[in-house]
């Protein structure tokens, strides 16, 4: 079976786009082939900074023949319709069509159109130009002479050459001929930009990979990553150091080189006074280098690892010294910022927050801090935080935004606040809060656990949400520029993971915002494997559903109840009652309330249900008040025998109207009793 080799060779593709682009290429080409009847055995996609490559194994030599039936007009239809049919089916004579009889529609024409399958390489030649022209790059561009035309080819950066060969292992593959924007597909590629820039003649995937390797290009991103990681670890080990691993950086670096060569540089010990996070941030963000720590310790070493794309004739000495120079300059800046910042107390920075707009309609950062202070004080008792510390932490939590260091490296906001607070002798909880009030930043980030940090973190997020809600800047669809979903999820996680009871409605959150919290809570609980219908059932009860911790406890208790036989039967009983009520209420045009006339309860089964309902509902409500939802569920579960017995013996729709009404009221009372814990009608299954 023949294989396809495709390579799109261009100027440097942004690292962050490479992996996705390789997969997109694979999807586009294989889909187009399969749509045209060309199934394949396997497909592998690759990317380097200068090329996307695709290897498809086990394609048919030809597209299968296609037999298609085309329905025509009925026999005796106007000539115009018949001509149209013949033309559409590609027949020159009506005698080539067959006549088919249909009992309903009568006789009509059918054309059997047979389409010979094309050679697969013709199919490839046909699909490629479109795939390339419509390639889904996140950002693409025009270039060169052809960019004067409106329909010029767009690519991520200028595209220079294309390899497209097709053939089986036993023969010399053919070049698949197509042309796009003046680039003819061929069998030539180029090696490493500096180490082997010449043209390379390629036949198929096997020799493509090995010839590229010889020309100092490692085709696979994962292999480049392995090489970098392995070499980085051994270089570190040889110096008695450990690599500080960084998967995102590794992925990026592997997208910046075709021939990774890891080298070690160093910087002066004196820079180690700078907080390690800052050293790492600057070396990582600006230089895309890895940092190292001393073996068995958390302290950073004064070394870094760079990944060059060169085998230099001086073994990298010049490259190392150049990189060291830049790292030194960056660290000098960072050290200067650090030392300058330490000279100013955090509280003395607050005035400057007046010049920073948080949002045009929500005032300055200074005004925001005032709000945070008030809110943190309000929340502190609820989360068992010291009010004075919460106030202090809220007051200082944005001060580092106007520090030199955060101005230069925004990603260390909060962290620097903690460092500066610690240095100026703030209480440990206050210092922690300055860093942790930003947390969690995402679903996998840790949450604050110190009460002071919790108070300020909740204040920060609630203020953000309440503010943006007030100016009607809510997330819509995929747009959430102020990360409000993340803020709400943060509140949810902090509350649930720290077991905090917080009635949101009492803390500035209106019904619309509460509904947003409920939506986020559903997503969160669903991700945890909770049944969404149970969440709906609990949220369906308005009372107390602004306390998210209670909502979750109710859901858990409901889940536990429904796992028991009593629970299942109670639900069945509820459904029966609800169905009867629904039908009768529709008929009567009223909604029955649970007001029972005890005097009208005659049969023992209805009496029994009437008696126990009142007691169970009251007990369940008591348990709910004490937030003992399992207890409340247990009370309801006790209704089961009475409910079962009622349905067994009693005909609800009695002839006597008053009795019927009273029995319906009894069912309504049962329905209401269940609502002390959840809206059972929302439960699925």
């Amino acid at each position, binding site marked *: 079976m023949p294989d396809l080799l495709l390579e799109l060779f261009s100027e440097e593709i942004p690292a962050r786009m490479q992996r996705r682009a390789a997969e997109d290429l694979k999807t586009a080409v294989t889909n187009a082939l399969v749509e045209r009847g060309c199934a394949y055995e396997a497909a592998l996609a690759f990317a380097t900074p200068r090329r996307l490559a695709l290897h498809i194994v086990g394609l048919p030599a030809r597209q299968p023949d296609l037999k298609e039936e085309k329905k025509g007009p009925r026999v005796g239809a106007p000539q115009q319709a018949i001509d149209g049919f013949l033309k559409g089916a590609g027949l020159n004579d009506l005698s080539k069509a067959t006549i088919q009889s249909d009992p309903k529609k009568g006789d009509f024409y059918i054309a059997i159109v047979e389409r010979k399958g094309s050679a697969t390489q013709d199919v490839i030649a046909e699909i490629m130009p479109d795939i390339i022209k419509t390639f889904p790059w996140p950002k693409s561009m025009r270039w060169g002479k052809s960019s004067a035309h409106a329909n010029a080819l767009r690519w991520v950066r200028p595209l220079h050459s294309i390899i497209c060969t097709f053939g089986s292992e036993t023969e010399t593959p053919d070049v698949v001929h197509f042309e796009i924007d003046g680039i003819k597909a061929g069998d030539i590629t180029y090696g490493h930009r500096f180490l082997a820039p010449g043209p390379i003649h390629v036949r198929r995937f096997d020799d493509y990979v090995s010839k590229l390797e010889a020309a100092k290009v490692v085709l696979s991103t994962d292999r480049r990553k392995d090489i970098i990681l392995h070499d980085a670890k051994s270089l570190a080990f040889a110096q008695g150091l450990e690599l500080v691993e960084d998967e995102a950086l590794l992925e990026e670096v592997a997208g910046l080189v075709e021939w990774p060569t890891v080298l070690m540089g160093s910087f002066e010990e004196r820079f180690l006074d700078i907080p390690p996070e800052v050293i790492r941030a600057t070396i990582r963000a600006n230089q895309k280098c890895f940092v190292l720590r001393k073996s068995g310790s958390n302290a950073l070493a004064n070394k870094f690892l760079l990944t060059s794309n060169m085998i230099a004739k001086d073994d990298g000495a010049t490259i190392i010294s150049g990189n060291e120079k830049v790292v030194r300059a960056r660290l000098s800046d960072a050290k200067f910022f650090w030392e300058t910042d330490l000279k100013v107390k955090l509280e003395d920075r607050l005035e400057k927050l007046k010049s920073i707009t948080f949002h*045009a309609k929500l005032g300055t950062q200074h005004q925001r801090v005032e709000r945070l202070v008030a809110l943190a004080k309000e929340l502190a008792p609820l989360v068992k935080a010291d009010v004075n510390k919460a106030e202090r932490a809220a007051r200082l939590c944005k001060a580092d935004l106007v520090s030199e260091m955060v101005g230069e490296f925004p990603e260390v906001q909060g962290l620097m606040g903690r460092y500066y607070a610690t240095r100026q002798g703030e209480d440990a909880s206050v210092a922690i809060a300055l860093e942790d009030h930003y947390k969690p930043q995402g679903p996998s980030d840790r949450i604050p656990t110190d009460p002071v940090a919790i108070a300020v973190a909740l204040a920060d997020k609630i203020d953000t949400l309440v503010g943006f809600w007030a100016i009607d800047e809510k997330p819509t669809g995929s747009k959430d520029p102020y990360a409000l979903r993340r803020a709400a999820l943060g509140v949810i996680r902090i509350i649930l993971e720290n077991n905090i009871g917080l009635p949101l409605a009492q803390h500035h959150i209106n019904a619309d915002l509460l509904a947003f919290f409920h939506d986020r809570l559903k997503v969160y609980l669903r991700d945890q494997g909770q049944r969404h219908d149970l969440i709906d059932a609990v949220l369906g009860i308005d009372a107390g559903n602004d306390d998210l911790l209670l909502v979750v406890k109710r859901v858990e208790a409901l889940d536990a109840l429904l796992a028991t036989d009593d629970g299942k039967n109670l639900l069945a009983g509820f459904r029966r009652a609800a169905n009867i009520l629904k039908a009768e209420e529709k008929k009567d045009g009223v909604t029955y309330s649970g007001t029972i006339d005890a005097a009208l309860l005659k049969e023992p089964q209805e009496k029994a249900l009437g008696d126990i309902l009142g007691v169970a509902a009251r007990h369940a409500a008591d348990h709910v008040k004490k937030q003992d939802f399992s207890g409340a569920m247990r009370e309801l579960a006790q209704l089961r025998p009475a409910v079962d017995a009622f349905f067994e013996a009693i005909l609800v729709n009695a002839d006597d109207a008053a009795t019927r009404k009273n029995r319906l009221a009894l069912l309504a009372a049962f329905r209401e009793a269940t609502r002390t814990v959840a809206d059972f009608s929302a439960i699925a299954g």
Partner: protein
Amino acid sequence: MTNALNPKTSFQALILTLNRFWAEQGCVILQPYDMEVGAGTFHPATTLRALGPKPWRAAYVQPSRRPKDGRYGENPNRLQHYYQYQVIMKPSPANLQDLYLRSLYAIGIDPELHDIRFVEDDWESPTLGAWGLGWECWCDGMEVSQFTYFQQVAGVECSPVAGELTYGLERLAMYVQGVENVYDLNFNGLDGDDRISYGDVFLQAEQEYSRHNFEAANTEMLAQHFKDAEAECKALLDFGAKGERHLMALPAYDQCIKASHLFNLLDARGVISVTERQSYIFRVRELAKACGEAWLKTEGGGA
């Protein structure tokens, strides 16, 4: 080669070498534009010539002023006035990357010793209403140039696309000369008493202009001049509009450049709030767009 003409030992020789190199590629070697600009891109030889169908190749040094970057001469890397070397080729030639690399070799960067990389950097100038895709060019981890394929300038789609190269000359020279402080650069390539350093030429200016930019510049006057430049730009655009043709795109664009620099000065003086900032940028961009449209109605713009 004497030291005076060696790009590895003399700042001015670096410039001369680049001029010679790009002259050989058919570029017109222009002199700096005689106005205060924030970057070489502002030179009409780039901004305006990037627009329209006519082929264009130019290279020049452009003194660039970024008032906010002043450090009173105390920072080894930051300057409020520095030189950019600017190359523009329209349409972008297929071998522009190679030409760029050869220009580096010409100034003494040996490709067998260094690690040269093209790292993603999408360029955007909100004040010019311009954007393009390209890279920052790294030499051993240091950004030495900016490489951009213009897609849009002054709000107009580039057709054809121009390739733009911008070399940070001081930084590049520091690298090839192996110095860590910009003021230590050898300017004329000579030694001993004949040696003239970058500091000899520019240190005093950096100190004085830092004072001016941060402390002294009269902000009321600057704000008024901004309004004046804006109004004059619009007036000239009106005056020069003659139906399908425009007769005064270049003088109008000068006023746009002026407005942009005045904005930068006001910004350095710290008197522009965050919201005002957006509005200033928007106003300059509107001027740039109007000038771009006017340019397309001139002969240079292909009309």
